[in-house]
């Protein structure tokens, strides 16, 4: 492992399901303290791509490197043990349970006689949320009473606390309103500033551009490019996402039919 190696890198990754090619020739990377955005329309291969990164699928071709070392994950747990945590859209939380119980769910710290360290858990949940810039008044509050953005932040804070180096966020803003989306984007910045590599999956270029350092654009399982922010003006990104030439053609078609 060298200092210059990115935290996570994929080179020419492909994924086949039987004779169907879901992904072909995808390359990108994320460094510590950077955000890589993965953009694409529905069916572009975003889910397959993150499931491959998260260890749910294994790549059929190409190289997957973590800190310069080639890996091949058999399960999400293996990916997790390498510090690659995925926050899915459904967030994996029980709405009627308190924040602190959800925060430690599945990894509850216990004392010598098997009791949970409840005081420590409540305190830590609050402190970790504070580090993300969220002040929760009462860790006993049920998660279901939090707003969508706050719930995202609990899931992100949880992943960070349990030693994630790379955070994969699966469409965290897709179900949220404008304001809440802004809140989540702030947490992405907060996680980045704490030295994590963030992979942010979205179909909204307006959410991606302000936070991203690198953009991977997918279309029908293929890469339409892997750009650094400096090489890609905002208008270009919006145009590529909107379908560019395809949209122009559509506009013609719609106007022509009038």
């Amino acid at each position: 492992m060298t200092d210059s190696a990115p935290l996570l890198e994929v080179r020419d990754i492909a994924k086949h399901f039987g004779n169907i090619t879901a992904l072909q020739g995808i390359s990108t990377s994320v460094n510590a303290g950077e955000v890589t955005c993965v953009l694409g329309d529905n069916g572009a291969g975003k889910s397959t791509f993150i499931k491959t990164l998260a260890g749910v699928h294994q790549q059929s071709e190409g190289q997957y490197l973590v800190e310069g070392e080639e890996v091949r994950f058999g399960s999400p747990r293996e990916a997790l043990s390498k510090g690659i945590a995925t926050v899915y859209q459904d967030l994996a939380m029980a709405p009627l349970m308190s924040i602190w119980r959800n925060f430690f769910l599945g990894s509850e710290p216990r004392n010598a006689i098997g009791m949970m360290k409840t005081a420590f858990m409540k305190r830590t949940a609050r402190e970790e949320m504070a580090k993300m810039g969220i002040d929760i008044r009462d860790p006993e509050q049920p998660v279901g009473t939090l707003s969508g953005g706050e719930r995202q932040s609990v899931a992100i804070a949880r992943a960070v606390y349990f030693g994630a180096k790379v955070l994969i966020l699966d469409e965290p803003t897709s179900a949220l309103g404008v304001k809440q989306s802004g809140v989540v984007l702030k947490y992405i910045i907060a996680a980045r500033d704490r030295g994590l590599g963030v992979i942010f999956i979205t179909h909204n270029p307006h959410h991606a551009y302000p936070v991203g350092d690198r953009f991977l654009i997918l279309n029908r399982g293929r890469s339409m490019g892997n750009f650094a922010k400096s090489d890609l003006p905002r208008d270009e990104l919006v145009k590529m996402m909107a379908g560019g030439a395809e949209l122009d053609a559509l506009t013609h078609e719609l106007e022509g039919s009038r």
Partner: protein
Amino acid sequence: MSDDSANVAVDDSDVVTEEVRIDERVVHVGPIQRMLTRPEVGALLGAIAIWLLFWAVTDKFGTAAATANWLDPAATLGIMSVAVALLMIGGEFDLSSGIMTGATGITLGLIAKEFGDNGLNVFIVVPIVFFLAAVVGWLNAQFVNRTALPSFIVTLGSFFVIKGAVLGYTKRIVDKVLVDDLDETAGYSGMRKIFATEFKETTYGWRDEIFVIGAILGLVILVVGVLELTYIRRATANPTGLLVAVAGVVAGIGGLLGLLNTDGVGTNALFGILGAVGVVAAMAGLGLGRYEPRGDVELAAADADSDGAPLARKRMSTFTLVGVALILLGIALGAIIDSETQDAFLFFFTVQGFRAVAFVGLIVAGVALIFLGARAGGSISAKTRLSLLLFAAVSIAAVAFIVQAMAEGRKFRTEFFTAMLLVATIVVGSAVTEFLARKRTFSDARADRLGRLMVAVGMVMTLLAWAQRTVFTDNIFRIAILWWVLFTIGATFVLLRTRFGNWIQAVGGNFDASRSIGVPAARVKTTLFIVVALAAALVGMCLAFRLNSVQASQGDGQEFFFIIAAVVGGNRLQGGYGSALGAAIGAAIISMVRNGIPLAGWNTNWSFLVLGAFLLGAVLLNNYVREKAEAAR
């Protein structure tokens, strides 16, 4: 996430935070509000209301003998409802749990009496029965886990399978539908000690003294604990205040002892006043002596700077006035309830029945309104609040005095009077303390720990004092009650303080999510089904060794009462939320209703109507309390 990194993090912050005792970032939630967010509170209030109702309309309810009568069935029902509640929180049902209490007993009897030539020693059979029960639970779980069908339909199937098997085998082996004369089996008397020992204490010299002293001390500790949780402690104590408090405690205890040991209108009034002054002085003295005084500026502030103040004050005074009026009406009705001459039929449509229901209903509604009024008064000045609370308390006390002067028997003249007076004086004491001392708005770990400890100790002491007074009479208490209490404590501990309890709530609350985050969801459910089956075996053994015989149909249909008790106790039917303690209280409620109705001389046909109404009421109340609890945070 590696285990190592988590452990390291744990050790680090344990060191850091011991230094930070007072953390201003945490909003301090007052003891009352904290209590209201617990799921079992609704059940507890319901239990108190039911107890009051039957206490008022019968002569016997509330005596030790009647208490023993309803505690006994509550124990076996309670063991099951607690187990069923755990499973319900985990998101599943077990409809075979009722028949299992009979099936385990029958299995015990058949093997112990008919195995081989002379049967088998029950010390061998009982472990076998528990093992077989665990297997049934495991099978239920496998069906549910592997097919992902609703447990409702799966366990309905196993219910009929077990029911059929029990009937078929019993008929075939002993040619009857029951197994009797269990006492002929080897080892019977030894096992009976474990499952059906009967306690009967006839010597109880210090019973009443222990009750009075224990209950008073317990209440004192409880009240001080609540104060400790509410107010800011002074750096150095104020000796004058503490002196007043001590004098108040002495006067209060003297008054209470006098009240309970005499039974005349005049002496009651005298000791009542002495006790009331004592309680108020004790609380006010403590407020002055131990806690930070409230500045004059703050007292006037709320009225001046809040736009909502006039409205809030109006609402609060309306609530308080209506609340007081309802309580007065309720008490007046209660005092004229004549428990001797009541029509056994259609009780609810008689004047007595109406009075009885109105008595409890009005008091409960009145207390609720005063409470709501006090909360609505958040933005009114301390002086207005104090005067309104004083008005409420003084009116309650006044009516208590009038009632005791008019009442016929000792029940209303002394016992009810003492209780009402105590409530009124504690309201006055709290109001005065609130006026004098400054409320804590931040978290103080030391005060919180001390306060919570005192609240817990106070409650346990009061409960134990009451329990020993109930136990030490010539009534029979069976060991099942002990198993019930221990099982409830154990289940509550597991649910609130262990990793497994966390998993139960998570699996019931969001199955897929908990599995994806690493909770062994299927294993959690399997364990819960086995726990229910083992609880059924325990209840089966308790009943078999007590009755000496087992009917094949025993327990059939009881599963719905287990579920009703769990739901009445604040457990969510859909899973993910609930309380083992609540389920135990729910069992007590059902048992009180079933025992109280015949005692009151009402037609027992009404008991299902009452139970059904309770179930519906409990579901509504639970919904309401949970919404409030979540909104209040």
